[in-house]
């Protein structure tokens, strides 16, 4: 498991409060109701806590956290 994958799993598990999301990395978390508009803020705070990288709300979009794979990709781009 790569670093970004591990990080993405940890963050989304905490934000969605469930490990059901691991079943399918492409599952649309918005459609499935795991993620609402606050999730974005929680993800920003989690990324900051774990990597020290400070993000602003305009740096990240809902699509970036809509599945585990998209968060892995996003994390790859900010590093």
């Amino acid at each position, binding site marked *: 498991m790569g670093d970004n994958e591990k990080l993405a799993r940890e963050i989304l598990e905490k934000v969605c409060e469930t490990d059901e999301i691991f079943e399918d990395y492409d599952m649309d978390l918005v459609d499935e109701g795991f993620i609402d*508009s*606050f999730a*974005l*803020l*929680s993800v*920003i*705070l989690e990324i*900051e806590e774990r990597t020290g990288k400070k993000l*602003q*709300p*305009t*740096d990240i979009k809902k699509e970036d956290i809509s599945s585990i794979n998209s968060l892995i990709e996003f994390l790859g781009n900010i590093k």
Partner: protein
Amino acid sequence: MIQIEQYNSLFNIYIYILLVIPVVIISLLGKKSKILNLAISVVMLSLLFRLESIQMREVCVFLICELLLIYIYFLIRKKTDSKWIYYLILLISILPLAIVKFSAHGKFADVIGFVGISYISFKIWELIIQIYDGRIERMKFIDTLGFLIFAPPFSSGPIMRYDLFIEESSKSIDRKEYFYDYLVPGIKKIILGAFYKFSIAFIINEYILSRYTELSAKGAIAYFYAYTLYLFFDFAGYSLMAVGTSYLMGIKMIDNFNKPFLARNIKEFWERWHISLSTWFNDFLFSRFVLRNMRNGRFKDTKKAARWGYVVTMMTMGIWHGLYLHYILYGLYHGIWLVLTDKWLKTKTFRKVKKMKYYNLISRLITFHIVAFGMLIFSGFLISI
């Protein structure tokens, strides 16, 4: 302040369409010109304010000062990310709007300020905030000026966003794409908007609102429903025409309304009503308020931070409309409803109720009434009693 609307008559729209014909022609030839768009914006604004008016001079002075401020800050930000300088620059950029809002109560109300100052201010703040965030690395003068004075949504929005404007004005569109994705939808939007504003809103105003000016039980009820519908059709119609005109100029904008009366709660309502305003406030005030207070530990709990965030954001939105008691109460009213909605959506009862047969219908009716009562506060009708 003298109020002039951009899309208040079919004649104005006719003139606007004539003005954008050169862009339509070159776009259909597969070309794009930032200079032409800028020139058309200048002509549209000159028609809006009239060249010799005091407002026109105010627009020019305002623009020069704000552009200087933005560019000076852009240079400063390269050297330092000092928070205090950032706050100072933000404060200076807010001053003109604050003066206009204060002077609305004084004897110079007619000469101070120009229509659209509230909307152009959002764009200026967005630029300053994004410069501070380090999101803007290069600034081309033609883009910055083009963004600030982009005429179709100038007087009453929707609020254009910098990222989208730069993306749209810089990308090349071939003739086929322009025809199907810009020209046709643009014309459709203008026609639908004109229908909303000049037919539906006009009829509501002519046959209901203007007839029930005296206070009576029947009058109050008719006013209650009619005013909300009037506001929607008037403003949504206006927004559609602005967005449509922008499409014709080869610039896509987000739609400002998405069937707001289908909202099942107030949170959803704000995702559907005056979307450009609510997303602006979400990105630049609400989210930042929550993050800031979580980072500095003032709130331990995101929920609590978010609930305070709702109240602060909606009050600010109320004040932005104007320094009047009814606008401030309107903001507070929506702030409180957002907090209550947030609590309600997390209850077990809600999850049960959501599965019931008539949930959608009943929740939409209730939401509509909450919204309509808010509009009544907004109209100042209640305060005047």
